[in-house]
């Protein structure tokens, strides 16, 4: 069966959707991605949909679901390269994808992920400092 490749790059996973998504493919991606996140302990997921020209409510919901699942597995999701037509369709469908971060292209998406990772690292290290003071 056809599958969408998931690339690992440092702490991040990169998915580029370059074929028209059908429902089975979407479910397979959801499955693969969650498995991969927990296997690689990834901190961020970047999904590039710049080649995606047609979306339906199912794909929209699936994107939203993936982001929710990744968050539970402690990984941030960034959706990049959405086409104007796709954005308009999703809005008309009432899917505003709350909670998903978006970026105009892969480059910006990567810097967004790096920034948020650095932020959370700072937060953890500050927590550590606080903890050491208390001790």
């Amino acid at each position, binding site marked *: 069966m056809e599958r969408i490749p998931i690339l690992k790059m440092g702490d991040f996973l990169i998915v580029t959707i370059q074929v028209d998504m059908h429902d089975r493919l979407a479910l397979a991606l959801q499955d693969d991605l969650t498995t991969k996140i927990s296997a690689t302990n990834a901190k961020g997921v970047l999904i590039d949909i710049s080649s995606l020209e047609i979306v339906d409510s199912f794909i929209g919901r699936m994107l939203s679901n993936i982001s929710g699942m990744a968050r539970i597995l402690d990984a941030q999701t960034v*959706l*990049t390269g*959405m*086409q*104007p037509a*796709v*954005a*308009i369709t*999703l*809005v*008309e469908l009432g899917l*505003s*994808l709350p909670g998903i971060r*978006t*970026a*105009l*292209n892969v480059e*910006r*998406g990567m810097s967004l992920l790096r920034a948020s990772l650095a932020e959370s690292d700072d937060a953890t290290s500050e927590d550590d400092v606080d903890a050491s003071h208390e001790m």
Partner: protein
Amino acid sequence: MSDTQLHDLISRHEVDLQAEWAKAITSAGSAREDLMKPEELRLQCSDLLRRLRQALKHGGTHDLTGPEWKEVREMLVGVSRTRASQGFTPSETANFVFSLKEPLFQRLRSELSAKPAQLAEETWSASTLIDKMGLLTMETFQQAREDVIRRQQEAMLELSTPVVKLWDGILALPLIGTLDSARTQVVMESLLQRVVAEGTVVVILDITGVPTVDTLVAQHLLKTVTAARLMGTDCIISGIRPQIAQTIVHLGVDLTSVITKASLADAFKIALARRNLMVVKRTAAVAAPVPAGV
């Protein structure tokens, strides 16, 4: 047969008919000498009468769609279109054609006073013919007006949705006029295309020129903001007037998910901050030479 009769009548009295027709138009108050010179009107009358005579001679039928009537149709369409653009009222335009009835019927009456049956028949056929000509004129008149309206609508749609680049990565969309679904669609599409083309980081939607904001307009605005966000661009809504702020709250529209600013300047400041830029006042010591022409 009846058409030959009408044709003979017109060809015999062409000059008289023409003068009487022009007079009838003037007496009906439809000449509009402020818009059209009397000579021009007379010229139109004689031209149309000549074409009408030829059409009656060759075609004869009272079916105005035939090839013999092409000349007459073209003339009527032309006259009607120019009058529509010159500012004639619909009744003035219609009177141009209908005024031919009076002189024509008078001629028929004097010619055929001895044969009442034929007179009635001739009058009827002449009347139908002129009615049809009048209808054609009105149809064209209406069409010309509608064309003007359509062109204006298109022009307005294009004019009212300019996407302005304020800075590298900052776009502004000054919205002017009422927002309806069709316009929102155009606005959204042109905005999103520009966002992709320019690699925009922040978009400022300025609604200073939007007269009223109701729930529908607010919904359209939110849709645009959401679509831009899905593409990875931040949206700021600016230019919200006090009355509009009140309306939005009274209507219970939730704009908490959107950054809103009172003026475009404030929104621009935020946008610059997002790009890690700032505007500083130039001090005398570091002042660069003023460019020529300033």
